């Protein structure tokens, strides 16, 4: 309920803002987000990021003089609903471009629609590598894929002489993908995997997996999932009273909501962040402040990803001076630019290759940047 209130406030804020280029026909960008359902927390962050970019770009006379209008519909975190929404966006609303929904699961479901209608779709809420292994020509990744999420964490594990890793992952596309790459990186770093355990997405009680990891004398516990899995694992560890040397949860801990839900149990948990205001990328701090002004809260990296998605599209269109989809698509594939989340550049499959990740750790109620070492705010803590 408080989330809905925030959304309505945001909408009112955006409607009320000054739109100097309203006279021209707007360029429309369609998207669905799980504003309700299991992905609601992160989807809300993406929503706010998109809308903030929409406000900012329209304040600058839109793109090529045309106002920008983002049509976002709630897919209730359901792939089937998302498919229907994207079909409607393409055939009825006839949007010019598309933003992908949140999660690799739902993004994988809607990509064929974009492909069928040959519309560039910017992916700011999904990271499974397999999304770019299907040969789609319109899928543009905004941020680093899952294969590189744990790179920094693994370095930290080596540096602190840890070796035995247990992996617990949900069975959704992103989580499975991430777990696979954790194993790969572990091999590269010559680390041992002592256990890999999968569970059904949405499972609340993760104690059995935690117990099993403990049983295997794991020093490092890697949880591959989203916010819920991160929170549930933190609670499970508390319940079985086990504190591995290091706990990593892929998505969730980078957001304030994780700490809000876990409190002290969030302590020492590592996670990957795809954007941090302290990274000092161009516009990052302005975005940070504007976000707080607009929503009275600090932005997580998901909001930054959404905002960066808008920035990338704006730069591609501006570069070719046209809204022609094919021209814009070619520009996106050749674009090498800076956004608030870092450098943008994709390979020939559309997968992001130039953006970098960060590793954060909750230390004494604070989200500290612990990797890369050059910009870390605190030393990583291992138990």
């Amino acid at each position: 309920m408080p989330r809905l209130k925030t959304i309505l406030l945001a909408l009112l804020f955006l409607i009320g803002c000054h739109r100097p280029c309203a006279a021209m026909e707007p360029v429309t960008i369609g998207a669905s987000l799980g504003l309700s359902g299991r992905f609601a927390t992160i989807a809300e962050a993406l929503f706010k990021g998109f809308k903030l970019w929409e406000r900012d770009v329209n304040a600058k006379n839109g793109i090529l003089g045309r106002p920008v209008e983002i049509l976002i519909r709630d897919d209730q975190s359901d792939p089937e609903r998302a498919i229907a929404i994207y079909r409607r966006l393409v055939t009825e609303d006839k949007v010019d471009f598309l933003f992908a929904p949140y999660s690799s699961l739902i993004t994988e479901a809607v990509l064929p629609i974009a492909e069928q209608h040959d519309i560039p779709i910017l992916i700011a809420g999904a990271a499974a590598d397999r999304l770019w292994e299907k040969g789609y020509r319109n899928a543009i990744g905004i941020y680093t894929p899952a294969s590189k999420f744990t790179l920094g964490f693994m370095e930290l594990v080596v540096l602190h002489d840890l070796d035995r890793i247990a992996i617990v992952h949900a069975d959704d596309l992103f989580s499975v993908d991430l777990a696979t790459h954790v194993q790969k990186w572990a091999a590269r770093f010559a680390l041992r995997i002592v256990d890999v355990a999968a569970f059904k997405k949405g499972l609340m009680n993760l104690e059995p997996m935690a117990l099993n990891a403990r049983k295997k004398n794991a020093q490092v516990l890697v949880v591959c999932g989203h916010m819920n899995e991160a929170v549930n694992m933190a609670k499970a560890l508390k319940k079985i009273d086990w504190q591995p040397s290091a706990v990593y949860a892929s998505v969730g801990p980078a957001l304030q909501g994780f700490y809000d839900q876990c409190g002290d149990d969030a302590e020492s948990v590592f996670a990957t962040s795809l954007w941090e205001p302290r990274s000092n990328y161009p516009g990052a701090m302005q975005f940070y402040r504007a976000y707080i002004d607009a929503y009275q809260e600090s932005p997580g990296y998901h909001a930054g990803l959404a905002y960066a998605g808008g920035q990338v599209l704006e730069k591609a269109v501006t570069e070719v001076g046209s809204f022609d989809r094919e021209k814009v698509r070619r520009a996106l594939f050749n674009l090498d630019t800076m956004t608030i989340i870092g450098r943008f550049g994709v390979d020939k499959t559309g997968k992001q290759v130039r953006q970098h990740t960060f590793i954060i750790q909750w230390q004494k109620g604070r989200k500290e940047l612990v990797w890369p070492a050059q910009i870390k705010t605190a030393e990583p803590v291992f138990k």
Partner: protein
Amino acid sequence: MTGTFHSLFNRLPLRMVAPVVIVIGLVGIGLYAFVLRSVSEFADLQIREALNNTASEVYNICDENFTELMQSGKMDDRKAIRIKKAFALGAIEEYADRNKITCRVMDEGSGKLLVNQMEPELMEAIAKTHAEGRVTPFTHNQTVRYFRHFDFKTWGWHIDLVKEMDAYAPLITRVKTAYVVTAVLLFCAIVLILQLQKRLLRKPLNTIIQAIRAGRPPEYKGVQEFEFLSANITAMMQLLEERNQNRLMLEGRLQKAQKMEAIGTLAGGVAHDLNNILSGIVSYPDLILMDLSEKSPLREPILTIKQSGERAATIVQDLLTLARRGVAVSEVVNLNTIIVDELKSPEFENLQTLYPKMKIVTHLEKDLLNIKGSATHLAKSLMNIVSNAAEAMPDGGQISIATENRYIDFEIRGYDHVEEGDYAVVTIADTGIGIPDTDMERIFEPFYTKKVMGRSGTGLGMAVVWGTMKDHNGYIDLVSTEGRGTTFRLYFPVCREAENTEETAYTPDDYKGQGQSILVVDDVATQRDLALTMLTKLGYQVATAASGEEAVAYLEANSADLLVLDMIMAPGIDGLDTYQRIVDRHPGQKAIIASGYSETDRVRTAQRLGAGQYIKKPYTLEKIGLAVKAELGK
């Protein structure tokens, strides 16, 4: 076998299609050799180069990480080395994924696989082609792959890279597709060509050929060129048909002419012998009568003998006419005169007596042009036709005789073939029983008659008509319908000379000699004796020679004012050779020629050498007397 192949190869469709197929085949081979192979070779080179570049890039990844490690001063930091190696391995794997390369990195020291994207079977396959520093192609799972191995010795890494040809597969597939499409198009082109050939070439040709084989005009309609060809073939076939009919007609006519000629030759031979026999019967009565008094009881029988002889001579003359050896056509005559005279003749009167119901109607053109011919034979021929007409009307009827001048400006292909020219035409039409079709072709043959032989005529009547017409260079047209009558139309070439109407009556005194010397040369003794008697009677000094050689010998020692020279003598030299030899020794030697045969080229040659008149045996006293006197008087 060779014949079958030759026959097969000579078929029009094969000869037309074979070059097309050969060209298309060559194009196909050319495409394969120069395009597809070139593309494959290009792809091969490109992949080798790409794999070499990849190896270089992978080496650079290792090298960069190692360099960074060196520069960080942590070469002795085990953890730092481990991290750098991990980063390098991650980058290598990512690079391999991005470039669709299968990669394997093995730590040489521990034998551990640090990166392994290869299936065991693939690893076995590359083990066979393992070679340092160069790209080696090999086939695995029916796919062509390229293998490249190198070492990053600093870290003791043994690196294998495998790349499939699929980077250029779309290009090769496209070229192959283009090749297949081209092959299909070329095949379609062949089919189309065959169809067009069938429709526009073979079908029209077959239509034309089948019609020709069936012996009918093609009459093809459709393709313009074949229409033209068909029309020409049709025209040619019609022309050939006409020519064939003409040829058959001419052959028929030739056969008829040859038959007539053969019969004539036979008749001529008989006539020659009969002439010699008849000479005595015709000539001696005159001599005897000269010595008999007017009141002699022998005079009447001798006259009868003479007349009988003359009638026999007439038959012989018919035979000679038939043989076309007896007609001199140099006399200018008018057919109207001959017809009028003939209608007044005793023969015609006899005919009217025999056929009292016969009615004669004449339509004679007033200014009918003259012709050159023999009045005697013409009269005889006309009389023969009229007689036959009368006989064809036993119950009476009408015979119309008409003459007209007529110019024929195009050929008449009737019973006879009348050439273009000016003609005096005699038409004799009766209303008799007509001539059956079966008899039409043969009525002019000698002795071909439906009448009872010996009752009337000699059986030579119509043959004489035919011979006379041919001697006069004329033509006969005959139209007959059974039960309605027959029409003879006789075409005579006209001449523009005036008719000689003078007739002179001679007495023996007009042709008596005055003792001039005459040498009679004849191989037949009776003829020599007859001539000796007749000429002696006329007052000449007569000597005889039984052959040409004898005559020449005689004139070596003697002379003669005139020679009476027989033309045909056997054995030995004939009249012409005799005269030739005599003239050689006695230039200007006068001579007349006497022969039972008609005037021939040899007679005319002798005349050109200086010989005078030609008289035909059997001759009368008057005829030989006038001829001798005329020649001596020159």
